[in-house]
């Protein structure tokens, strides 16, 4: 599956296509919404973008030749999200190459910080990550995607998925550790 599959042009869809789409693709709406929500950091925007992505997927459905329907859909969702971000929040995408980590993870403090992490702290920490790291973490930890699926959804080479996850996890630990202790204490 390549991203060009999406651009074969829209087809005329009939009731058979509709039934097949309902069976294969629509069940992954939650996955689509969840990925959009974590990429856009907003439920309201995610509703719009997930809807747009789902209808785009339907228009290009004849270009889907079987296989992993979830990965196919999530690839479209991701592309739609990035297009939306480029248009509406270009600054967020510019930070993504600033990814050099100078902080070395030293195990024990993080372990403590993570042990006390609740939903709000995790959400905030995840949202501080650049989208490219956030998406691999969401796909791996929340969506349960394999490296192969992550590679196909994000169009990064499969050999890079592991290092992207490694760096994403380091960044997340870092964000959790460095969220202010007072704040952490209050939340706990």
């Amino acid at each position, binding site marked *: 599956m390549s991203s060009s599959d999406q651009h074969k042009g829209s087809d*005329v*869809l*009939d*009731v058979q*296509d*509709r039934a097949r*789409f*309902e069976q294969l693709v*629509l069940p992954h*709406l*939650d996955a*689509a*919404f*969840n990925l959009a*929500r*974590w990429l856009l950091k907003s*439920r309201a925007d*995610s*509703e719009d973008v*997930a*809807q747009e992505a*789902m*209808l785009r997927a*339907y*228009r290009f459905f004849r270009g889907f030749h079987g296989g992993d329907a979830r990965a196919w859909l999530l690839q479209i969702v991701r592309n739609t999200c990035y297009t939306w971000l480029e248009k509406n929040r270009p600054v967020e995408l510019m930070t993504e190459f600033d990814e050099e980590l100078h902080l*070395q*993870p*030293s*195990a*024990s403090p*993080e*372990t403590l910080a*993570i*042990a006390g*992490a*609740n*939903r709000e702290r*995790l*959400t905030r920490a*995840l949202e501080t990550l650049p989208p490219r790291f956030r998406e691999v*973490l969401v796909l*791996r*930890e*929340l969506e349960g995607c*394999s*490296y192969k699926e992550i590679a196909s959804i994000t169009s990064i080479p499969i050999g890079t998925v*592991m*290092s992207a*996850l*490694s760096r994403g*996890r380091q960044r*997340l*630990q870092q964000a*959790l550790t460095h969220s202010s202790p007072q704040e952490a204490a209050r939340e706990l």
Partner: protein
Amino acid sequence: MSCDYTRSVLHGYLDGELDATRAAEFERHLEGCRECTTVLGSEESLRSSLQRSGLYENAPVSLRKKIRAGLDAATTSSSGMRIPAWRWLAVAATILMVASVSWITWSRRAKDSASTTPFTVAEIIDAHVRSLQPGHLTDIASTDNHTVKPWFNGKLAFVPPVKDFADEGFPLVGGRLDVLGGQNVAALVYSRRKHIINVFVLPTKEPDTPIHEPGLRQGYQWRHWRRQGMEYCAISDVSDSDIYELAQLIYQ
């Protein structure tokens, strides 16, 4: 952080993405590497926090509804908006083709029936007009079909179906023998609000037809059809709707 494994292979191990050989190799390494053991524990803790904190956000019901509406609009059966012009052309061409085939078939049939109809329109009108002359309308005057029908026995080589439709507004007046195209035919006489409708009946070997479109000449209208080995022609000066109504009653 000096161990090369923590940055990469450890994550593949954590995610279950290493093949058996590499996984076993990493496990042997873990036994002797305190750093990797600590980091692995930390990563497992992070993972379990991520997975147990309810971070996964399901699509709201309202979104599901909006998407279904959008799918409806993009599916051809529920909206013609998305059908490209060439499809409409194809549809139009198909309709045209079916229409011309039907027309050809119909016109051939019309020609066939014209050539095989054993009488002309002029003969029918003549017969009808003649029947309206005093004393010519009926040979057997009866409103009783059980009287009219047997009357034809022995006078014709066939038995015409005779029914009274008085209840439907077409009382049977009687019957007579007539000649159309040199052939003896049965004429059934019905009345409709003091007007006379002649129904000529003769046997035919042609297949059944529906009730054909009305013909009109000299103020007389007629309907022609074939049914169960009989050829029918109903003619009168009443409106076509009345003739058609009687034709349908006989046709049943």
